């Protein structure tokens, strides 16, 4: 869609685009290009020149077991937390969409967790799931030592998944509810007149119509699980125990800023960028074909 009527002084038009272009050049394109350059060189921390090493940084990353561990757990984290957030959000949205007493209150309250910062959610869950205090500590009274996220990698993973999913169920809920509400009531009423049950109506009428939202949320939830998880990991586990929660974005940060390995961190960033881009394209190409657009 284009405007027929436009303003003729196009120099003025370009002037309006200049601030954004300057910003994205300085803080987006230059750093992105720099990341590519750094990943191909050996950078001295805090200046002091660089040596061209080609793909050596990538080779040493790929040869490193810690890195593969980081990829595996990032994918595990993404799969489980995206699954929980989307299924949870979908069920709650489908149920609040029904006209029932009190559903307005639910619509309001179920959104709240999205407003809370991931690190603050992490802090709350760190207490709730602490082995020595809080609510879950009771299980340690029954079976001493069974729950300790400080020592057990799986328990630590469960902690970060809980904090992340809590926030993103609310996010998925917002979009699913909007999608359900956009479905014309008459469509569902017609199906009801034909005598189809509530469950049938959900699968045959509502579900196909919300597939674009499912597709959109899948992309967003996975991408966010690679980024927004940083604060959660930093507050809850700092990547431990034994790297069991050292997700990709956290590893980039700790290798780059704590280990001062800028070249390695840059190479990891490139791989993460490619992963996100490939995921997005993959999802567009393969999932979009099954999506029914209105």
């Amino acid at each position, binding site marked *: 869609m284009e405007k027929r009527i436009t303003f003729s002084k196009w*120099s003025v*038009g370009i002037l309006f685009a200049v601030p954004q272009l300057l910003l994205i050049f300085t803080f*987006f394109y230059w750093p992105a290009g720099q990341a590519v350059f750094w990943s191909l060189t050996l950078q001295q921390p805090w200046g002091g020149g660089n040596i061209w090493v080609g793909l050596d940084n990538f080779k040493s990353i790929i040869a490193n077991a810690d890195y593969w561990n980081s990829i595996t757990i990032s994918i595990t984290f993404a799969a489980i937390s995206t699954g929980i957030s989307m299924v949870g959000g979908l069920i709650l949205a489908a149920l609040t969409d029904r006209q029932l007493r009190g559903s307005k209150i639910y619509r309001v309250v179920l959104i709240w967790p999205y407003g809370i910062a991931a690190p603050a959610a992490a*802090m*709350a869950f760190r207490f709730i799931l602490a082995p020595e205090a809080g609510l879950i*500590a009771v299980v340690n009274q029954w079976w001493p030592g069974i729950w300790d996220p400080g020592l057990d990698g799986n328990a630590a993973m469960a902690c970060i998944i809980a904090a992340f999913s809590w926030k993103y169920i609310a996010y998925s809920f*917002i979009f699913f509810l909007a999608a359900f509400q956009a479905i014309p009531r008459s469509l569902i009423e017609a199906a009801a007149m034909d005598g189809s049950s509530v469950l049938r109506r959900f699968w045959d009428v509502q579900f196909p119509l919300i597939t674009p939202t499912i597709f959109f949320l899948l992309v967003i939830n996975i991408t966010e699980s690679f980024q927004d998880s940083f604060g959660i990991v930093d507050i809850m586990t700092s990547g431990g125990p034994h790297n069991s929660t050292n997700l990709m974005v956290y590893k980039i940060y700790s290798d780059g*800023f704590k280990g001062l390995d800028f070249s390695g961190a840059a190479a990891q960033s490139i791989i993460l960028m490619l992963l996100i881009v490939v995921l997005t394209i993959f999802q567009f190409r393969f999932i979009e074909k099954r999506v029914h657009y209105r």
Partner: protein
Amino acid sequence: MIERTPILNFFTHLILFLGFLVAVGPIAIVAIAASHNIADVNKVPMSLIPGSDFWVNMKTAWTTANLGPKLLNSLIFATGVAAGKVIISAITAFSLVYFRYPGRHFIFWLIFITLMLPLEVRIVPTYAVAANVLSPYQGILDITGISWLIQKVTGIEVALNLGLLNSSIGLILPLVATATGTFLYRQFFLTIPEELTEAARMDGAGALRFFIDILLPLSRTNMAALGTIMFLWAWNQYLWPLLVTTDPAHVTAVHELKSLIPNVGGLPEWHIAMAGTLIVMLPPLAVVVLMQRWFVRGLISTEK
């Protein structure tokens, strides 16, 4: 819809109530833990009946973490990002929709691509740019050989340097630099009737006049929505403030949470930690509650 489904209604209420508990439970537990004293907060299981030390703990958390200035920093930061996004998005969308100039489609794609790669994955080089915001321009001068030429001709070494670390500008600008919002405005401007532009032009209004007197007042709703969502997004940022603000005077409230994690050894001070968490949680939560309509609309129309 008139239909009797008592069993289904019962399960709907049951599941929704569970959902309600999951959504509000953790916030309530934080508030209850913040009201206990150190012995009660460490009792297993913790009593869910609020204690009496709520205000004492809130005060202790407020002073030990020095939350007053930190909340002010967060406020400046989040307002700055929201205002920056709203303004930049509006003028860029205006340029893209209401003018036809060569390279317009190229510019459109340049902006569109920025939505794909978040700050987190280009964090290391972005930090280097914040340390010297002129380094990209120095880089261009070096690559093109202009700085070499200048040194040859005038003897002056070109060394552009302007650090933005530990400054509000350094915190804000890189987060404003993606195009979220530009497309929201673009979609909205495209729905504005052509007759309006035609009438404005017949009345002799120029581009700037049309933008300020007609387009901006019409997009107030979009501004409120985008502003709310960007405020929340910025308030809740963690990684970027963690890197840019090393000086305690510039640290944001969310970042300060980490200092409240109880130390090992002795009874952990969870009551203070939870009081601090509650204080940091409340401002964005209040924004969500008060601006719910705009917040939801902002989320859904920016699609992020």
